[in-house]
């Protein structure tokens, strides 16, 4: 994925929702932000080994 097309807070938000649902409990904001960065990183960086 082209990183320039990332809209922080919108891109891959559904993936974040699915992860949050899978955790089963509310998560702290810092943990959510970390996970969101990992999701974006997987989208951008790991597509280009």
């Amino acid at each position, binding site marked *: *994925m*082209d*990183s*320039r097309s*990332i809209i*922080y*807070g*919108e891109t891959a*938000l*559904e993936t*974040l*929702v699915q992860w*949050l*649902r899978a955790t*089963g*409990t*509310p*998560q*702290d*904001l*810092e943990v*959510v*932000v*970390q996970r*969101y*960065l*990992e999701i*974006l*990183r997987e989208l*951008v*960086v790991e*597509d*280009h080994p």
Partner: protein
Amino acid sequence: MRTPIFVGTPEQQALASEIFRLMSVQGTLFATDAPIKQTLSNLTDFLATQRKREREAMAREIDAALRVNDQVFFRQEDTETREIIYITSRLGVYPTQREDTSHTFKQRLYEPDEPLPVDDIRVVVSTSRPALTTVEPVFISDYWQQQAAMVSGTVRAPSESPGAVDGAHQADARASAVPVQEAHTHPPVTPVVASDVVRDTMLPAEPVDDMRAQAVSSAMPMTAPPVETADEEWLPDGDEVVPVRTELLAIAVDEGISVDQDASTESANIAVEHTLPTMPDVIPVERAVEVLDDVTALEGDEADDIAAEDTRPAAPLALFTLPDGTVIDLRQPVSRLMAAHRVVLEEALINHIDHDPLQRIVRFGRDLYTDTDTVHLGKNDLRRIREYILEIGEPVLDTAIIADLYHSHRQSTTESFRFSLNYRLSREKEFEFVGVAGACLWSTRGLPGIGTRRVKASEMGHLTSYLVEGYDDSLERQEAEIHEEGIMNRPLTFFEWDHGVIPLDARLATLLPQPLLREQRTVVLRFDVPQHYTSYLVEVRYPTGNRGGWIQGLEEFFHEHLVAGAIINLVRTGEPHVFTLTYEEGGVCSDRLLIFDEKKHKFAFANLSYACAVDGDYLLTQRKFGKLKNLKALPMTDRRKADVVLAHVFEVVGEQVGTRKEPLYWLSLDDLYVAYNVMRPASRPYIESLLAADAMYAPDEATPGAYFYKPEPDIDEVEEEEERDVFVYDDDDDEY
């Protein structure tokens, strides 16, 4: 429906009229101008039977009558059956139906207004086997495509090399057509330094070892996959071929560039080294483009064209920009990103989540959860919770609500239910969150208020506005102690002791927790007083805009156990909303101290006994501050005017060193601070700023820390002063 006028003999008119009526009934549901058809034989059968006439005679009469009235009945003879047909309409006239053939769909299809020119039949019809337009896909990584817009430098394919490309090169050119085409679709990039490219591309074909790129080394070379050679049959014919070269790309991160020597033995290899511009927070990237074409066949001008037009794939980037302009590089570890940009990232994500129209993620404080997994609370639940809080009589923890009202709930023990409770209550107007992080306290309408009613919240916000204006030096003395040990101690001023409020200065704000919610302005804390086995609910009002903050609710405790000047200690506990309030005990003392008589609405001195350690500078005894008795109990609207209070305090407490006509008051800053804090809260820097801002106040050069106040002479006031006694307080005010 109008009736037409019939002609002929009376018998013919009657017959024609009857036939028209019959046909009109037949076409009752027709449109008014729709043709209504009837055969002569049918009409004859019907009328002959009805009138018991001979059929042939009847037919003649009908035909004669309708022929006469041909303006109404259109006579038509079927050529096949020889049947006579009469046609009319409900309008009494038959409009001849004409087919509109001025334009037809068929005509428009075959005869367009602007036909395309057909110069060559091959444009329309192909007599040969159609060429497949699909090209073998060549993988071009997004890595390179992303870099195309970020990296300066272009290398153009030798597209204009007429006749110089042999079959093998044509194959290479065809195979590489796709990447070159994609490169041209990239956003324009800054051209690479043309001289380097020209020099390199003009070198004769030599082994790679001899090339300039050999000097470049790489620890992690990345080479693009070799391009597959297409079949010969797909070659374009003759001079229609667009010669394109094949590139193999090698990239090295951080260290250098390597050249893939195994790429091709048929063509000379030229490595062109490029140094990419350094991006902010991005690891510098160097790369080399290895050209496998036989560039020796190129002319100098063509080499220039290569440098000018071709676009090289670029190194990958993982950058995106936050709304505030912060650039985030996703190649960095998440922990490093969080350490550097945690606040910005959190704010940006919260902003998007709060404004998500689908509300997929809901938030309470710093906790986030999905809306679909959040438990819904109905009206009955809200009513029960409200009644429960009112029954308790004070703000209640969410855990207490769950324990008492939802102890049998199957989800009551889960964090998700607790989150749901807090989230749902936060969206209800009748509930107010007054808790802090780790202690979710809920209040509701109808609970008794906390704190004094003698001062309105708006007035207190104004009186403490000096704190947000920068006149707060409270943290200079105890910052380390508060941070490390969670302990704060301070003397009480008269205003604080009298009203049971303490300004939320920096020292107190450091000790107390911050509000959990962004829009939260009030927090309720519990101050335990172990010396008296009691506890008090204290309301914290946080600063808003240009209004300061304060805590209130300690009026009863202060009046029962302390005096103005007492030193209190406030200590954190294990619970975020519970603090321990203590004071240093001392021997029982009795003295005449300043009080405010609410009944008489004036200041006075009264005998008070206390058993706490006090700061002597703040203790308002009659011996030291006897003049304070003459302070006017200014209404709060006047106390908000800092300059008015300052002048009043100077005139009452200050030493008159001038004359009656030209009064001059002298007062030390220490006494001024204590006396000023009888009327309203203020810090020393704030008072000093008031003194410096007005020309009527001047420092005493002979006595550091003392000031003069020279008011403008008021003739009327001077005359009044002559008539009344100068300040003499009487000792008979012992009724307290």
